């Protein structure tokens, strides 16, 4: 991707699609919003609700991943770093130090953001495979450390007895829905304007951005912070929903799941990533009987998307609808 015009169009297989305020998009958002609000009414089953709770969290995580990786060209292969940190922060503070619920929930994003500030400086200088590797390694380091520091973290077993978010399934549902709505909505709003353009320009050609007088670091850091905070909050909520946290929250599987959701739904479009989160969580739960092969399903969903719908399912659909409009 050297800016040579003959490669300008072929260089981007995973090209972020554009958000344009089209009626279809808004209508779909409104409809799905309404549907989601009323799920507890027409599907009051506890299991279904817990599935949706997970979907809310994943949608937010996918959106959080996308705001950094879909937009700035820093593909984060260790997003679990933020989620896991948020989860463990909440779990440890609530079980070991008996902090109140609202405190531990907030601790997640705060600690994750702190982590981002700490490593963001040197890390954001890296691009492409280097950044991917660094993030993969970072998550891996923390995964190892939870095992090594087992007196504190409970090792393989993890932390049990994390206080639940709420005893009512419906309340848990609405709290996580509110989080998802706020996260996705907030991230979408933040990236739809000029800032989103600058982020995408950074991805397209960072050197050219700087040549245009744009100091890229603050923008990248902003995206990283948003990404980390979203992940951290998803993590702490996750801890209170599952009432247990283990080393799997730092796993590569989680990082990859989030990536797949975003890619399938639409990289570079916050709403697409969120949609991917919902789609794949619900899909995998409905295929529950395959148990551990969830990732298999994801992977099989991913292949055709990457090969034939490189912008992601949602932008692809929207593109079709727009073309038919003319």
């Amino acid at each position, binding site marked *: *991707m*050297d*800016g*040579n*015009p003959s490669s*300008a*169009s072929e*260089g*981007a297989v995973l*090209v*972020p699609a554009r958000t344009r305020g089209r009626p279809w998009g808004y209508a779909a958002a409104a409809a799905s919003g309404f549907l989601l609000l009323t799920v507890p009414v027409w599907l009051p089953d506890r299991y279904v609700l817990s599935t949706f709770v997970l979907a809310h969290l994943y949608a937010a995580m996918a959106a959080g991943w996308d705001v950094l990786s879909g937009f700035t060209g820093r593909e984060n292969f260790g997003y679990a770093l933020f989620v896991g940190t948020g989860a463990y922060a909440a779990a440890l503070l609530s079980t070991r130090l008996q902090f109140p619920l609202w405190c531990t929930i907030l601790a997640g994003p705060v600690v994750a953001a702190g982590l981002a500030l700490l490593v963001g400086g040197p890390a954001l200088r890296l691009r492409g495979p280097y950044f991917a590797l660094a993030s993969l390694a970072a998550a891996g380091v923390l995964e190892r450390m939870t095992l090594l520091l087992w007196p504190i973290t409970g090792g393989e077993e993890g932390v049990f007895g994390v206080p639940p978010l709420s005893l009512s399934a419906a309340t848990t549902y609405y709290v996580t829905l509110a989080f998802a709505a706020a996260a996705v909505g907030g991230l979408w709003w933040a990236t739809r304007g*000029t800032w989103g*353009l*600058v982020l*995408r*320009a950074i*991805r*397209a*050609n960072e*050197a*050219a*951005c*700087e*040549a*245009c*007088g*744009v*100091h*890229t670091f603050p923008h990248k850091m902003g995206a990283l912070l948003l990404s980390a905070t979203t992940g951290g909050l998803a993590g702490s909520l996750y801890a209170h929903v599952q009432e247990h946290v283990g080393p799997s929250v730092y796993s590569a599987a989680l990082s990859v799941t989030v990536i797949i959701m975003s890619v399938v739904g639409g990289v570079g479009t916050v709403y697409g990533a969120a949609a991917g989160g919902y789609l794949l969580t619900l899909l995998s739960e409905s295929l529950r009987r395959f148990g551990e092969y969830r990732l298999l399903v994801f992977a099989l969903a991913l292949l055709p998307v990457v090969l034939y719908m490189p912008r992601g399912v949602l932008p692809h659909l929207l593109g079709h609808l727009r073309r038919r409009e003319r």
Partner: protein
Amino acid sequence: MRSLVARDLQKRFGGLVALAGVSLEVEQGEILGVIGPNGAGKTTLFHVLSGFLPPDGGKVLFRGQDITGLPSYTVAQLGLVRTFQLVRPFAGLTVLENVVVACTSARSRRLSRGRSLQDRAWELLRQVGLAHRAAEPVDHLPFGELKRLEIARALALSPDVLLLDEPFSGLSAAETAPLLELVRTLSQSGATLVVVEHKLRELMQLVRRVVVLDFGRVIATGTPEEVARNPAVVRAYLGGAA
């Protein structure tokens, strides 16, 4: 008043000496041409002047201020802007959006006196003759128009000095004429330009003073006619006695 001064710039890449002590001065309002055979160090010179690469030795003074080693975005913010030889458009964005990004820089905002980013971008596109392409994805543009887009982005910063890196390379005859016109207009409106170019015919029509580089050194300066007759220059281009 000298807008840009380079004093004894040195740059090596491992064992390769790209700049071996280059000094030059650019007067305000002039168009200076920089020529030399391939590998003479012209693009490296631009990289060093504009902050893309720090020099290993020497100084760069811009309007009297020492800008040696400052990063490229700072240099651009100060008013020294460069374009790239191999154009670097923001793929995936439209033509207008490409320019808008440049307009978000602090300097651009400051100097556009309260106009919206979009308006400023439109104005710049009109200035380079690309307004009719505003909504198109930048990937659709032919090379000649991409070059003009580069210039539009550079102009977003209202540069005091503009470094044009081979603006005419790769262009067909049809594309060259409008670009030549654009550059002339820019110069006439008072901009200071430094142009690296291989297409000597086009360059000589634009500039009144030329600096010749070879092997990282300045081997001649003067008017186009003087330089063309300089035996050292001829030797550099044609090889001379082996």
